[in-house]
């Protein structure tokens, strides 16, 4: 019988102090062991690429180039002075400003309309959700046809009711709103499903209480119960919608190709990095893009914690 085996038979309390690490240390060790796989994955898949990106953004690295020079903040300085990039930023912000409130409002309205239905609910849910499952690139072709100046049905309708025809996909001032409309079409179904989930989580009793309290009218019901109880859902919808909107890319790439001043952030990054091979510069733009998302997410996460937890 080995010494270790003999020791194992002794009750824990009788072991000489200091022979094994204290309970706290052992727990800490075991804890770190359990956390290791998650931490390694996080490092390898998210943090390491992010650090590489930041490092890259301070260099003039080009795809396939052999020597790399350290530029310091030059890429960033160039980006801030670049009129194309500045237009990409303002276009993206305009796009988000159109899609975010529209996406929340229409998603909510669709959910409210569908929620009360019993038999037709499945049909409406599927119908609204279809655009989410459709590939935007493929659907862009359909939109191109719909909005075509000569053969498109949209302009045919405008003409029929006596309104001036519009060049939706070439008139510069209409381009971003048109893209935003398609983005909206794509995102409303998803938001509706989220709102529907939120609506079914509202206790029925609260509506009964509202009715007894004299808040039984539809506006009162909405303001007293539905809207406040949906606050957590609304914030979540706002976060996902704004991130989706910030990442607008495919419709721009397919419908306008970034021409006529329709550059958006992700498209500008794509051009610099994969068309002009200026990886260092593209990395700097990506860092700026991520900062935008970060500001949004942090703002919303803080609000989420402060205001919308009722328990």
């Amino acid at each position, binding site marked *: 019988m080995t010494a270790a085996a003999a020791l194992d038979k002794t009750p824990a309390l009788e072991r000489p102090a200091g022979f094994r690490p204290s309970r706290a240390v052992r727990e800490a060790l075991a804890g770190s062991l359990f956390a290791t796989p998650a931490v390694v994955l996080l490092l390898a898949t998210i943090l390491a690429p992010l650090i590489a990106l930041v490092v890259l953004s301070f260099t003039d690295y080009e795809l396939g180039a052999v020597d790399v020079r350290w530029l310091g903040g030059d890429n960033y300085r160039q980006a801030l002075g670049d009129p194309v990039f500045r237009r990409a930023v303002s276009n993206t912000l305009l796009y988000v400003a159109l899609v975010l409130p529209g996406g929340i409002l229409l998603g909510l309205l669709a959910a409210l309309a569908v929620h009360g239905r019993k038999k037709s609910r499945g049909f409406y849910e599927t119908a609204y959700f279809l655009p989410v499952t459709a590939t935007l690139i493929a659907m862009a072709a359909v939109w191109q046809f719909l909005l075509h100046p000569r053969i498109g049905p949209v302009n045919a309708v405008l003409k029929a009711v006596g309104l001036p025809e519009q060049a939706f996909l070439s008139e510069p001032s209409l381009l971003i709103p048109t893209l935003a409309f398609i983005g909206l079409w794509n995102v409303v179904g998803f938001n509706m499903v989220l709102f529907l989930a939120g609506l079914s989580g509202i*206790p029925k009793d609260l509506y009964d209480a509202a009715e007894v*309290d004299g808040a039984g009218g539809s506006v009162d019901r909405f303001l007293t119960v539905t809207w*406040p*109880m949906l606050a957590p859902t609304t914030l979540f919808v706002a976060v996902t919608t704004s991130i989706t909107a910030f990442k607008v890319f495919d419709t721009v790439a397919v419908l306008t190709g970034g021409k006529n001043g329709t550059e958006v952030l992700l498209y500008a990054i794509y051009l610099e990095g994969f068309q002009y091979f200026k990886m260092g510069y593209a990395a700097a733009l990506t860092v700026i893009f991520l900062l935008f998302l970060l500001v949004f997410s942090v703002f919303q996460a803080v609000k989420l914690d402060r205001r919308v937890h009722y328990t």
Partner: protein
Amino acid sequence: MPASLKLDRISKSFGTTKVLDEVDVEIRAGEFVSIVGASGCGKSTLLRIIAGLETQGAGHVRLDEVVVDAMAPRERNVAVVFQNYALYPHMTAFENIATPLATSRLSLYERLPVLGRLSRRRAKIRAGIAADVAAVAAQLRIEALLDRKPGQLSGGQRQRVALARALVRRPSLFLMDEPLSNLDAQLRVHMREEITELHSRLGATFVYVTHDQVEAMTMSDRIVMMDKGRVAQIGSPSDLYDRPATIAVARFIGSPAMNFLPAAADSSGALFHADRRLPVDTDRAGPVVVGLRPENVAIGPVYEGAALVGRIRRVEHHGHDRLVHLDLQSPLGGMLSARVSATDALSDPAEGCFVAVDFTGPAHVFDGDGLRRTSKVVRLGFGRIDTAAEAAE
């Protein structure tokens, strides 16, 4: 002003299941009436119909003799306290209590979040509302809790806030659906007193749904006992206790529960349990069930010719008295419990002993349909052996 309430043949079905069947109830202004019954018998549905939250399939609801079937809950001027309180979780206690006042005193436009501020009279009305909320909060001693949200309140405190919200606009009829069922036993007893006291102070009409017969017995002027969507009996607590109209009422009311013995009546109305003559007579022949409250069962030493003999299975000590559970020594088996005083000579019966069982008070006889039959106990106490019954065997 308290309102009187009249339910006139109310029926209600959900799909094909009949939940309420011709419910007729009359409640006087200022009365405290409990609706009791087993789970699923339609108590909540009835309450919701009175409140106007549910529409009945047939029949009428009358408040102060006026038919209110077409009125919204608010127009009926009823207040409801819900089982899980249904407080608005995003509002403070103050805002919860103020809601019914705001909806009645401010116009819809004045209640809107931003636009409402444009109204000139809003500030003044708001001040009036705050004063009324403060007054009702003082009544229920929740002044200190007014700026907390429901999530930050204990069950009892939420209960009080819910009561305050119901009280604040002085309704003529209070409806409560098992308002105490989420509280612990001690708090429940306390709130029971508080609600009773509130009732006498306000003088309003209270309709109180509960499945706890103790609550119903201790709080109400009258009890409506429901059974499978029908009214089984309406009466004072002592009516229901002393003269249960059906076997369901007998089973439900009283704790510890009533004992039941299967028996048969011969043509003279004498009752037999497995050929032993029970000391009870009824009016007609046929199979019956005899109900006996534990306090009307006496036990004593076994004697020659005792109608029933039991073997003591377990003795429960309740302080002032004891509950003795017996296995009946009869071919039909069965159990019986007897409530004996702790100071009784036989107060400490040993488990496993055999004892004679006698009836010392009213026995309730129910026929095959569970309906009450007239009955009388023919002999009382021990030792009065009816040899004629022996001879009949």
